[in-house]
């Protein structure tokens, strides 16, 4: 990837030259991203789509006398970059001064960090990739005769470069790769169709789950959905699958984001050092996980990302702050211009949560935007399975899941050891008591 290094240093020099010529009364920050790649989809053993992408974007923010303006362009010619800077300057002149505005303090930024282990470039033969998607889909069909249709199997690849440069001397660049393979299978019973999917997503091509496993898993999941019934309205314990737990944790994380806090649009304002989760729950951010899907050395402002406790023994230890939010809240920047990998753990993870449930629901899918970040009120559509004495009775459809996030966190009974490592939020399943299920 020698060419890539060259092109990054070319861009760096170009931007540095531009900065040197610019009005020095302004501060400047440039964020650049380059991404090359493609996606291949096959359906019924034929190629359906091959899409190549090649994206580039430059964002510039300018500051003067606590006024800020931003502009972006996807044309990286010198002329367009100049135009973007001028546009940002014009905007800044019209915005209002805010003394929290400005580049990060230089003690938070640096030009050095450990290798992140997220860049695995590989030259792939497109023919092999097409075969991979075909194999993936066929293994879904072969797994079970009731799999009668498909939305195909897709492979995606991208090779990304990020660069930040500001007029305070911060500079950083890193490369990453993303590979994914997925399959969407459809099955039918009594003229009612269902669909479900499975995927693998990694930084390293060789770490992808096998095409056979992904296809078969998609088939198993869709077959399990067949014959879904509605149930009566009730209040009961609910076991959320790792994917659904991740969605609950994501609602928590957006509520402790600095901008939600200073805008007072969160149900978690004034909660530092307060107990939000039961004692046994810990939530950490780890920006440098090897192969992590959100691993990165610095955030969107060039501030070094930090490993830290967010929830320690159930207690909220920090909000997630970028430079502006930190100043606004008179606190320290936590390198959260982006959010990296999140690890949810329990002091007593359990191996067989489902088997130990006497009565309740296992929720594997939720729909809709019914998480109110201001009040914590929670109401979403769901799909899952009715559990009795540790066994799945039948799939359940057309239900709602409702409570309030604060109550839900308080009512967590246990966490599973079935951690899903594919996502930014790494968590096992979660058993929560006292959830209202709306049904017939």
């Amino acid at each position, binding site marked *: 990837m020698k060419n890539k290094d060259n092109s990054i240093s070319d861009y760096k020099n170009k931007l540095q030259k531009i900065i040197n010529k610019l009005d020095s009364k302004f501060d400047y920050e440039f964020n650049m991203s380059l991404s090359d790649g493609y996606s291949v989809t096959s*359906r019924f053993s*034929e190629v*359906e*789509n*091959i*899409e*190549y*992408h*090649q*994206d*580039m974007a430059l964002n510039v923010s300018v500051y003067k006398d606590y006024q*800020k*303006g*931003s*502009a*972006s*362009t*996807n*044309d990286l*010619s010198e002329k*367009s970059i100049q135009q*973007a800077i001028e546009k*940002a300057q*014009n*905007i800044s002149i*019209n*915005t*209002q001064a*805010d003394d929290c505005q400005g580049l990060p303090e230089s003690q938070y930024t640096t030009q050095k960090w450990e290798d992140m282990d997220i860049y695995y470039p590989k030259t792939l033969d*497109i023919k092999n990739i097409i075969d991979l998607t075909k194999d993936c889909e066929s293994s879904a069909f072969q797994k079970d005769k009731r799999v009668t*249709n498909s*939305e195909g199997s897709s492979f995606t690849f991208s090779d990304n470069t990020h660069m930040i440069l500001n007029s305070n001397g911060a500079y950083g660049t890193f490369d990453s790769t993303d590979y994914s393979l997925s399959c969407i299978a*459809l099955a039918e019973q009594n003229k*009612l*169709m269902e669909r479900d999917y499975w995927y693998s997503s990694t930084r390293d091509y060789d770490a992808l789950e096998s095409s056979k496993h992904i296809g078969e898993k998609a088939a198993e999941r869709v077959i399990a959905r067949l014959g879904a019934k509605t149930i009566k*309205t*009730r209040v009961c314990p609910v076991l959320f699958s790792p994917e659904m737990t991740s969605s609950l944790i994501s609602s928590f994380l957006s509520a402790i984001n600095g901008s939600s806090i*200073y*805008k*007072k*649009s969160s149900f978690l304002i004034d909660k530092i050092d307060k107990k939000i989760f039961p004692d046994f729950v810990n939530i950490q951010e780890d920006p440098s996980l090897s192969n992590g899907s959100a691993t990165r050395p610095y955030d969107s402002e060039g501030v070094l990302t930090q490993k830290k406790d967010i929830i320690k023994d159930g207690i909220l230890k920090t909000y997630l702050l970028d430079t502006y939010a930190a100043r606004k809240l008179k606190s320290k920047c936590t390198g959260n211009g982006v959010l990296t990998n999140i690890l949810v753990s329990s002091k007593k993870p359990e191996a067989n949560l489902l088997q130990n449930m006497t009565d309740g629901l296992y929720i594997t899918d939720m*729909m*809709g*935007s*019914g998480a109110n970040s*201001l*009040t914590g009120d929670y*109401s*979403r*559509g769901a799909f899952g399975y009715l559990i009795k004495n540790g066994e799945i009775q039948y799939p359940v459809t*057309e*239900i*709602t*899941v*409702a409570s*309030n996030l604060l109550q839900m966190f308080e009512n967590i009974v246990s966490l599973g050891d079935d951690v899903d490592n594919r996502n930014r939020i790494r968590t096992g399943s979660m058993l929560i008591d006292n959830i*209202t299920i*709306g*049904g*017939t």
Partner: protein
Amino acid sequence: MNFIKDHIISSYDLSDGKLENVLSAACPTNIDFADLYFQYTNSESWQLEDGIVKNGSSNIDSGVGIRSVSGDKTGFSYSNNFQYENLLSAANTSKCIVNSGQDKEIKIGTEKDIRRLYEPISPLNYKEDNAKVEFLKDIDKYIRSKDNRVDQVIVSLAGVYDSILILNTDGIKAFDDRPLVRFSVMVILKVGDRRERGSAGGGGRYTYEEIIGKKFGYEFADEALRQATVNLEAVDGKAGAMTVVLGPGWPGVLLHEAIGHGLEGDFNRKKTSAFSDLIGKQVASNQCTIVDDGTISKRRGSLSIDDEGCETKCNTLIENGILKGYMQDKINSKLMNVDPTGNGRRESYACLPMPRMTNTFMLPGEYNPKEIIESVQDGIYAVNFSGGQVDITNGQFVFTASEAYTIKKGKIQEPIKGMTLIGNGPEVLKKVSMVGNDLKLDDGVGTCGKDGQSVPVGVGQPTLKIDEITVGGTQV
């Protein structure tokens, strides 16, 4: 004006001959069809929070998407710039789906004269930046002066100018210029420990002139304040199946989710939709007639031509409860042997077009909204929503109410907290027992997502009564 025509074509010296070469490179003999989608997008946004306009942003995104189609196979590539050599190279990449064949000779037709549903102008040039900032400040001041419980006000103003050129191997050459503006306001009220929000907004394919300094913005401010006030009084609602009356306008998000997505041509060609093979069948009560109409002047979801150069239409999806047709783009209409319906849309040059909705709404019925509410013994009345989602295969859909009330013995009672409603697309409209005479379209804030691509859309409906649908309250 058209930015592509007036600036790009000449600056990059892109003669018809060169463009024909690019199309020809994307369309060898064993390819059925190829198209080029030139796009130049200039957008900006301004936001006020905590009483000040602390930032604004301006974005330029431009490029050319090149697509080669053979049967149901599509190859796609794009270029971020307009250099002839880069276009040729993208064209060579896009034809990768087939083994190489002879390049076909392509003739570009004369420019298509299009029916214009909006002015070919850039909204960004109408009003000084300073006027935009002053307007946002004024709205903030207005809201804070009206209610001392105001804890936060967030107001934003955004404008987009989209200039496109579509060229294809059928000889189409069509330019379109698409203005789009949007204003939104969110208010948080605080009483003791309780905090609730209300939001409102609107926009369309016109310029800031229609918004800045007009009554429009203040009316939305009043509306956001009203909703937040209502939500301060909201109590926990019940869970379970019940009768629901939906208000007119924006609650039409019901139609978008319950039937709209399920009637998109791609899903029906692949038979992955719960509505596959149901043309001519009863899928709704006979009071329901639903259209997707991309031709309404200046509306957010409208387009003079779709992103494949076809004129948009008013397509009847369901007539008196009977399923009449699907929404189509070029590829799917060809494969299904029907006419395109003008629904081929894409988020940008960097994405493939797909069948998408425009403005989807139900035509008015015969009932007075008052008599619809009076007919309900025990149920809820939901008037504002925050969005929805659907699984088109099993037909399950949700939409989330942000303002709702209980109805008891024909009378609207106390407000209840926001909640999600869940139903089954092919079943739910069969339970529509009363359709009001008060058709209203939404105010112009809708955005629809499909396969990661967002496009602006509209919805609408008259007041209507659903005899039974599952509601996600917390009380049993």
